[in-house]
C-alpha cells in the first residue's frame, strides 16, 4: 500500500485508490448520519442563531457520546446540570462543525489526487479521527491492550466476521490519519524554521 498523504513543495498531497475512496465515503456518510440532529433548528430565530437547543440529552449510544462528550465529569446533580446546560448551548454547533469537516473531506474525494491546504488537512484529520472514535467504540477499544490486539489484524484475508472486518477498516483509517498528521507536523516544522 502506497503512502496516502505526503508533505512536499506543493504542501500536503494525497492519493487514494478507488476502493479506498469508496470506503471512506461510506464511513463519512455513516458518521454524518449519526451526527445529524434529531430535530430541526430551533423555531425561535435568536435561539437558532446562537445554536441553543433545549431538547438535547446525553446520547445513549456510547459512540455518539464519545463524539459529543460532557464538558464536566458528571458525578453529582450540580455537575450533571452543568453538563446538560453546556450541551444545550454547544452541542448543535459541535455536531454541525463535525458534519462540516466530514462533508469537506468527502468533497476532496472527488479527485483521485488531492492537494490539501491547512484548512482542508485539518478537516481531514478531524474527520478521520471521528471515524476512528466511532469504530474504536464499536470494537470496544477501552485500553492499550485492546488497541494492540486490534492492531495485530493487518491481513484482509483474515476478515471473516464483522469484528475482524471493522478492525481492518479501523487499522486502515489509523494508518491514513497517522500519515496525514505526520505530513501536517512536517508542514508546521517547516514553517517554524521559515519564521526562524
Amino acid at each position, binding site marked *: 500500500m502506497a503512502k496516502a498523504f505526503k508533505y512536499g513543495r506543493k504542501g500536503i498531497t494525497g492519493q487514494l485508490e478507488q476502493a479506498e475512496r469508496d470506503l471512506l465515503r461510506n464511513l463519512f456518510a455513516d458518521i454524518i448520519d449519526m451526527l445529524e440532529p434529531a430535530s430541526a433548528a430551533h423555531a425561535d430565530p435568536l435561539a437558532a442563531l446562537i445554536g441553543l437547543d433545549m431538547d438535547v440529552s446525553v446520547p445513549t449510544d456510547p459512540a455518539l457520546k464519545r463524539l459529543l462528550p*460532557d464538558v464536566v465529569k458528571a458525578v453529582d446533580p450540580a455537575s450533571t446540570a452543568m453538563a446538560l446546560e453546556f450541551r444545550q448551548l454547544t452541542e448543535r454547533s459541535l455536531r454541525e462543525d463535525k458534519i462540516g469537516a466530514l462533508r469537506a473531506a468527502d468533497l476532496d474525494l472527488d479527485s483521485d489526487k488531492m492537494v490539501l491546504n491547512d484548512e482542508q488537512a485539518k478537516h481531514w*484529520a478531524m474527520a478521520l479521527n471521528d471515524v476512528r*472514535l466511532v469504530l474504536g467504540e464499536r470494537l470496544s477499544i477501552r485500553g492499550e491492550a*485492546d488497541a494492540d490486539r486490534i492492531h495485530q489484524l493487518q491481513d484482509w484475508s483474515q476478515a471473516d466476521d464483522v469484528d475482524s472486518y471493522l478492525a481492518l477498516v479501523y487499522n486502515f483509517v489509523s494508518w491514513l490519519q497517522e500519515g496525514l498528521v505526520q505530513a501536517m*507536523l512536517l508542514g*508546521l516544522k517547516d514553517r*517554524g524554521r521559515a519564521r526562524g
Partner: protein
Amino acid sequence: MTVSTAPDLARETRTHELSAPDVPWVLIVWNDPVNLMSYVSYVFQTYFAYSEAKAAELMMQVHTNGRSAVAHGGKEKMEADAAAMHGYGLWATVQKDDMNTGS
C-alpha cells in the same frame, strides 16, 4: 493513545503559556486508546500555539498519567477550549482548579 513518533525535544520555540498559578479553572485532556499521539501533539501545537516541546510534554502526560491540565483560565475560556477539543475529538473536561490537577 497509540503510535508514537520521537518528538524533537531539542528544538525550543515560542511558548504561549498561561503561567498565573491562581486562575480558578483548568482544562483537563484525558487519555483514550484511540487518539494518535501525533494528532494530540498537532492539536496542542496548533490550537494552543504551544511549542513542539511543550506539546510533546503535555501529550506524554496525557499518555502516561491518564490526563493532563493543558490550560488554565477563567471558566468561560476553559469551556470554549473544551468545546474546541471536542471538535477535534479529544476527550476534555473543565473543572475548578483545586491544585490537584497538575498531572
